[in-house]
């Protein structure tokens, strides 16, 4: 039946032989061109700019060089920004994982009718955008902010505490902004874990913690990996949250690259710094996959 229909379509004149035999090419042609011209070619261009020298008048010089990369990696000032950013990203992704995991487990297993609305409440902040939520954090964390009012009223502190324009503010803001990106991969991984496995382990005498450690956590590892990678990447490249909640003096890779590309206009150096960040974002990704693979191999042997 199917073949007959398709062969009829193939013989049909009109849209042309190509449309008859390979209709998907016609459908994909325009989007493919769009991608090649506006994503692949610009990325190639960005790489080529990163291996050119900086010439003040024309911005991108004529000489091929690796000096943009070596300058960054040899200068302790820039290395400090890189390490600080990676540390920030590590803290944010670890904290997000710990906060998100129980919620994801609950949402993956609950039969509650509220589930749809809880998911809705997770996604709407994401849709509202970073800038609005970052402003909300200014109001919450400021000297006269909601948190300080609460702390003063409860008698925990006598003087308002300084939270805004510190690293704590940046960490809090980033966790809040990125938490949904951790929760959703975890939910989809946990939904694939068969609840009867947990029941079986419990029947065989495993306590709740042991079931978690030896059954649920290993089986949901793909979700843990992808959530962590996404949150790590997004926090390492964040611009808005560190720039606003960290105050004008905070420098992260994101704010540095933004400044180089739009204010200093040193495009070769800015592009190189962006590639260095991409390379370092790949390190924890590889590390994580290596650990996962070893754990899997260990389980297979054991």
């Amino acid at each position, binding site marked *: 039946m199917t073949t007959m*229909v398709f062969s009829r*379509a193939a013989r049909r004149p009109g849209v042309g032989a190509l449309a008859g035999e390979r209709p998907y090419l016609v459908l994909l042609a325009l989007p493919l061109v769009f991608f090649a011209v506006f994503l692949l070619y610009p990325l190639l261009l960005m790489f080529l700019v990163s291996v050119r020298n900086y010439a003040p008048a024309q911005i991108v010089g004529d000489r091929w060089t690796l000096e943009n990369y070596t300058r960054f990696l040899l200068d302790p000032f820039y290395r400090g920004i890189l390490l600080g950013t990676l540390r920030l990203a590590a803290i944010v992704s670890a904290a997000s994982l710990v906060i998100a995991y129980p919620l994801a487990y609950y949402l993956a297993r609950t039969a509650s009718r509220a589930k749809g609305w809880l998911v809705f409440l997770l996604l*709407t902040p994401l849709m*509202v955008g970073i800038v609005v939520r970052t402003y909300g954090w200014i109001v919450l964390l400021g000297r006269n902010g909601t948190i300080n009012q609460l702390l003063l009223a409860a008698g925990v502190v006598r003087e308002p505490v300084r939270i805004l324009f510190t690293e704590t503010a940046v960490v809090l803001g980033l966790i809040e902004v990125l938490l949904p990106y951790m929760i959703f991969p975890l939910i*989809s991984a946990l939904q694939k874990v068969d609840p009867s496995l947990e029941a079986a382990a419990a029947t065989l005498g495993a306590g709740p913690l042991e079931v978690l450690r030896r059954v649920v956590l290993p089986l949901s590892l793909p979700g843990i990996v992808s959530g962590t990678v996404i949150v790590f990447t997004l926090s390492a490249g964040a*611009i808005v949250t560190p720039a606003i909640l960290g105050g004008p003096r905070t420098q992260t890779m994101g704010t540095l690259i933004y400044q180089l590309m739009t204010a200093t206009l040193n495009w070769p150096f800015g592009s190189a710094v962006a590639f260095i960040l*991409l390379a370092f974002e790949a390190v924890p990704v590889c590390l994580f996959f290596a650990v996962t693979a070893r754990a899997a191999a260990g389980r297979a042997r054991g």
Partner: protein
Amino acid sequence: MTLRLLRRLYLVGVFLFLLAPVVVAVGTSVNPTRLNLFPPQGVSLRWYRAFLGAENFTHAFVAVSLKLAVIVALLTGLLALPVAYALSRYRFAGRAVLQTMFLSPMMVPQMVVGIALLLFFARHTFADELRIIIGHVLIALPIAVRAITASLEGSDPQLEEAASSLGASPLQAFLRVTAPLIASGLLAAMLFAFTLSFTDVNVALFLTGPRTTTLPVEVFAYLRWESTPVIAAVAAAQVGMILLIALLIQRLAGLETMLKY
């Protein structure tokens, strides 16, 4: 018993943490003074008037962000629909590669998309508005492709085959059989593309020109040096609009189809 109580507390805590900034941002807008205080010290519409009187914010809201987001939504739908259709209805060599490629902008950090396009546009001149539109279509496309694929997979390809065996051309079969079935999924994907474009900063930061500063970029630039409740009024308008869209997407396709990994 205590376990259940702990679970309740934890759930309430996480949602409070997630929603507090949005609620606080909106609530601060009715403050009568210049201070960013929540709970507000009174109720006044002063900052809404200030917002409507600030040409930079109203221009960025209506003439730039709203307009661009509508165009981005239409273009994204137009590009994502054929991709989703080809990938879900045909099996051919290289399909897996193409699938990965069309979803790849999610892997490339948005900042990098912005920088690469900035360098591209420095060489090849495009109108200021078109620059941002292209950047936003790139980041919206993967999510739209995914969402439309999901709704295509929910409609039976045999229906279209039946239509063509009854003499309908492929286009007719698509328009009269499949299109009505996936219309709500397509609309939901386009609405999501609209909100992505309207709220994006990471790409727009690198692509805005003097008269094409989008609302989030305008607010970001303002917040770097000062903050008054006028931002809260802007936020309230944005949150109201996006909440309506989110409810609409929820009814059309379910919001969670937009963020499947």
